[in-house]
């Protein structure tokens, strides 16, 4: 009995499978104004995945244009619109809301709550995402085209495009999505502070919950600065004010400060939950407790804090005074300390572990390793002299795609595979999962690695035609991107097929720790038969017996 991992959880009923509240969620509920956090979580994840496919399609058109040095697929205004909307969709309609969806599903389960703190607010926040996204996409139908000023929308460029209708729609849609994010932030912070089960102290929370706490604090206290900046930009376009118009004495650099005061921390809003995902998956598949749990938890908070004082490193080339450059160079390099703590903790967790290289683990390992690469180019870019050299080149594009795709999107796939049995009550097909991983891993590196040499050689970003000397690397990147596009097909087939008719999953197929695995798969309406009482910290993998190992379906 001593090595029973469930012992730490008093009151968790193991025979919960056929109780009164375990009714299956019908498909209709996913299209309704449901206030169940699990339904809302799935709504978020499926909706944002559709936006991911749209954003990916735009990226493939961009890469199609870049196969040849000449302008031959789309015209320049459309090309500008494509990269503007590609960035906007991937950040504001894919990664950030997907993380919110995942957290919506998991946080109440992980802290032993029956739902989020404000279920109705939660549903309203979700239902603002589809209109906001459709509004943004609708600007493709405008005669004057979409917003064309890039996802930053720097003035004066954003004030100069003809008619500006696309720009206005872009701003309005971002404000709608922003309000939804603030509602989500209020809900998560309150949930984590107030809804934890008895005995679930802060230092007993899984790292994923810590990461949501940190990232949602950033949303709450940085996002409003962007909203403020966008309101001023909108007034400049529509109401004749002069905040950012240099010709009228306005200050366009001020917009850059307001924009990056949110949009740098936004990177951490995107990546911290994925660090949380890695911290859940790596211990489960190496059967070791997470190394240095407390350090990792505190490093998460430290990352959130440091990320609010580094924003001007995006502006080293924007007449930023010398003292500011040095200050922000220093703070930016400081980021490497807590991220180093995390990478070290993951390595030490996997070290001498009993590895089970199933799909979630492959994606988590792949993501964590490629984050190392992204982190190294990040430290390079933090150094002002180097940054000035590669400013506005493909080196920067390569760097942040290693973060947003090779780390974050890989982490998202890891999370989907890891919690798929919990969410749907069924197992996915392991073989197709591995094929998906290898296609993604190879495709992502083929696409984004060539951007680094291209940038070092001086190829500028956001151009649709370029010097023929850059063509070789561009062809590789484009072919890689088509492979990357194809790699989602086995994923979609696997997930849809398994959801409909996959083999039934056990309640805890990975023999993982965490309250979400102690309830049934899928969890009943209010998550737990009886609210558990928590008595020990997470990741007690030493408590499991020899035979309790993660197993994929069909491998028994």
């Amino acid at each position, binding site marked *: 009995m001593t090595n029973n991992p469930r012992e730490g959880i008093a009151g968790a009923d193991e025979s919960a499978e056929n109780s009164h509240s375990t009714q299956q969620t019908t498909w209709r509920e996913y299209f309704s104004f449901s206030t169940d956090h699990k339904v809302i979580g799935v709504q978020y994840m499926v909706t944002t995945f559709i936006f991911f496919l749209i954003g990916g399609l735009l990226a493939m058109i961009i890469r199609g244009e870049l196969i040849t040095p000449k302008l031959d697929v789309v015209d320049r205004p459309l090309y500008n619109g494509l990269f503007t909307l590609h960035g906007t969709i991937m950040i504001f309609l894919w990664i950030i809301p997907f993380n919110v969806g995942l957290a919506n599903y998991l946080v109440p389960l992980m802290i032993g709550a029956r739902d989020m703190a404000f279920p109705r607010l939660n549903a309203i926040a979700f239902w603002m995402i589809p209109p906001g996204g459709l509004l943004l996409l609708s600007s493709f139908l405008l005669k004057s085209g979409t917003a064309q000023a890039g996802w930053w929308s720097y003035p004066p460029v954003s004030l100069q495009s003809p008619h500006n209708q696309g720009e206005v729609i872009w701003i309005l849609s971002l404000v709608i999505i922003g309000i939804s994010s603030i509602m989500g932030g209020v809900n998560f912070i309150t949930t984590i502070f107030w809804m934890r089960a008895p005995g679930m102290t802060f230092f007993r929370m899984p790292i994923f919950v810590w990461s949501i706490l940190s990232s949602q604090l950033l949303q709450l206290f940085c996002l409003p600065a962007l909203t403020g900046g966008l309101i001023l930009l909108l007034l400049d376009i529509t109401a004749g004010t002069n*905040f950012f118009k240099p010709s009228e004495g306005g200050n366009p650099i*001020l917009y850059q400060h307001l924009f990056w005061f949110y949009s740098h921390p936004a990177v951490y809003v995107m990546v911290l939950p994925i660090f949380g995902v890695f911290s859940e998956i790596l211990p489960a598949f190496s059967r070791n407790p997470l190394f240095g749990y407390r350090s990792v938890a505190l490093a998460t908070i430290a990352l959130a804090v440091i990320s609010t004082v580094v924003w001007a490193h995006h502006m080293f080339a924007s007449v930023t005074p010398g003292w500011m450059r040095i200050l922000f160079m220093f703070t930016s390099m400081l980021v490497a300390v807590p991220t180093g703590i995390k990478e070290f903790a993951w390595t030490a967790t996997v070290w001498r572990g009993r590895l089970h290289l199933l799909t979630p683990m492959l994606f988590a390992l792949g993501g964590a390793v490629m984050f190392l690469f992204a982190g190294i180019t990040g430290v390079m870019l933090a150094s002002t002299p180097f940054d000035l050299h590669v400013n506005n080149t493909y080196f920067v594009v390569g760097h942040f795609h290693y973060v947003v795709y090779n780390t974050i999107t890989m982490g998202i796939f890891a999370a989907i595979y890891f919690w798929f049995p919990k969410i749907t009550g069924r197992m996915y097909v392991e073989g197709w999962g591995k094929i998906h991983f290898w296609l993604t891993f190879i495709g992502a590196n083929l696409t984004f690695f060539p951007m680094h040499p291209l940038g070092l050689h001086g190829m500028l970003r956001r151009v649709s035609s370029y010097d023929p000397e850059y063509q070789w690397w561009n062809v590789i990147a484009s072919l890689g991107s088509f492979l990357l596009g194809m790699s989602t097909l086995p994923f979609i087939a696997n997930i849809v097929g398994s959801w409909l008719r996959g083999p039934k999953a056990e309640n805890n197929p990975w023999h993982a720790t965490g309250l979400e695995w102690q309830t049934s798969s899928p969890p009943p309406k209010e998550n737990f038969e009886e609210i558990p009482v928590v*008595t020990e910290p997470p990741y007690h993998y030493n408590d499991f017996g020899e035979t309790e190992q993660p197993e994929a379906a069909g491998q028994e």
Partner: protein
Amino acid sequence: MESSTHKDESPIPLEALRRLLPNWLKRFLPSGGGRAHDEHGKSMFGFTVFLLSESVVFVSFFVTYITLRLTTPHWLPPGVKGPDLSTAVMINSVVLVSSSFVIQAAEGALKNRNLNRFRLLWLATSAMGIFFLVGEVREWLGLDFGLSTGLVGGTFYVLTGFHGLHVFTGILLQMIMLVRSFIPGNYDQGDFGVSAATLFWHFVDVIWVILFSLVYLWRA
């Protein structure tokens, strides 16, 4: 194995700190969990978090105003006097700030379940808010600059307008709470709405004090 440890194993002596803090701040301290049943506390916590977030929008406008004002060589275009600290503005500010005390008294009356006194003071707060808004619009109409007059116009109307929008929202909230106070048994589930509307009104007042200092007291 029944557990006894519900305390947070935090390295900071939280218990000692907890006793020193005012009630509203205590909400933000971590706990050992198990307080999901406290609906009023939970809702007020969420609302406070929202207000803190909302205040960052104002901060971004204040920073914009201060930066532009400090870096623009000719803040006032020729012939423009800029915002004027007139008697009307003074009276307006005094009315708005004192309404904070009135609404606090109203909340206190409700705590004592003195419903009629609550409604009277509550209505007085709304009246003071409306007085402020009317005064603000009258001030706007009498000014010698518009939204697109240099940077002084844009910043002035955005700051006062965005704040006025919040005053308006506050009055709407008060109206809803007033109507609800006539529903029998409205306060059986607690009085979160009244507490939230009160806190919101204090928030609007604090913003006004900062705005007033920056816009009217800071002379060119």
